[in-house]
């Protein structure tokens, strides 16, 4: 039963990602990407990781997707004629074949056959993993980069009277 749900979600997420290249306006592309984020979160739930699923939902759907809708899709400015679909399909299939061959060679595919879940991420583990020195340093660096990017965007957009 769970395998059937996994296959269905796998099909949905792959279709959602592929639709991104088919639609010709940014709004529908943003919707397809949000759909991929949502199904990704559902797959986290299927793997018994509810905490990661909720964080994924908040960050990617609540943050990134909404920002994408407001910032990009609302402008409705697009010319979608630059994707080479034949090259897209050929390259995707080639990379997929190479990576799957590598996975089979390393024995990762089929490794956990019939085994139960090994780990489930909990809030107490989150607190423990965030208290190491390097994790804190990397998170502050990322936060600083985000802050500087947001601040730098203001004069750039203000010069053109976009905002």
């Amino acid at each position, binding site marked *: 039963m769970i395998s059937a749900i996994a296959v269905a979600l796998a099909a949905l997420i*792959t279709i959602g990602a592929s639709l991104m290249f088919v639609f010709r306006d940014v709004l529908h592309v943003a919707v397809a990407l949000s759909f991929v984020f949502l199904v990704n979160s559902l797959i986290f739930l299927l*793997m018994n990781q509810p905490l*990661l699923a909720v964080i994924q939902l908040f960050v990617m759907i609540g943050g*990134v997707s909404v920002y994408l809708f407001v910032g*990009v899709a609302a402008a409705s400015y697009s010319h979608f004629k630059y994707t080479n679909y034949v090259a897209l399909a050929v390259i995707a299939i080639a990379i997929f074949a190479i990576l799957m061959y590598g996975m089979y060679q390393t024995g990762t595919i089929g490794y956990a056959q019939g*085994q139960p*879940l090994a780990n489930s991420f909990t809030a107490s583990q989150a607190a423990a993993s965030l208290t190491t020195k390097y994790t804190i340093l990397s998170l502050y660096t990322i936060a600083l980069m985000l802050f500087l990017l947001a601040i730098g965007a203001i004069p750039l957009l203000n010069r053109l009277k976009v905002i």
Partner: protein
Amino acid sequence: MILDFILTMGIALFSIGIAGVVSSRHFVIMVLSIEIILVASSLVAVSLYSYITNGEILSLLFVIWAIAALDVIALVVFYRYLAKLKMNLDVTKLNRLRDR
């Protein structure tokens, strides 16, 4: 069995993302393909964590989510900028920004 499905899906998503970056010249599509690659990497990381390894996962996921947010902020800023200038979104023609 579920691990196999999800790893296969992660690899498929990664392939679609890489192919999207390589085959498209559209600015928005390229950035959103990078988002697909990030989704695939988070999926593979969580599936391997759930079934096989017992390592550190949250820092990696935070980095992935932060890169995704950075991507989208940069995309929105440049997109609004290019839209205001009514410039082409073809990345091979972005050097025309130099004349503005």
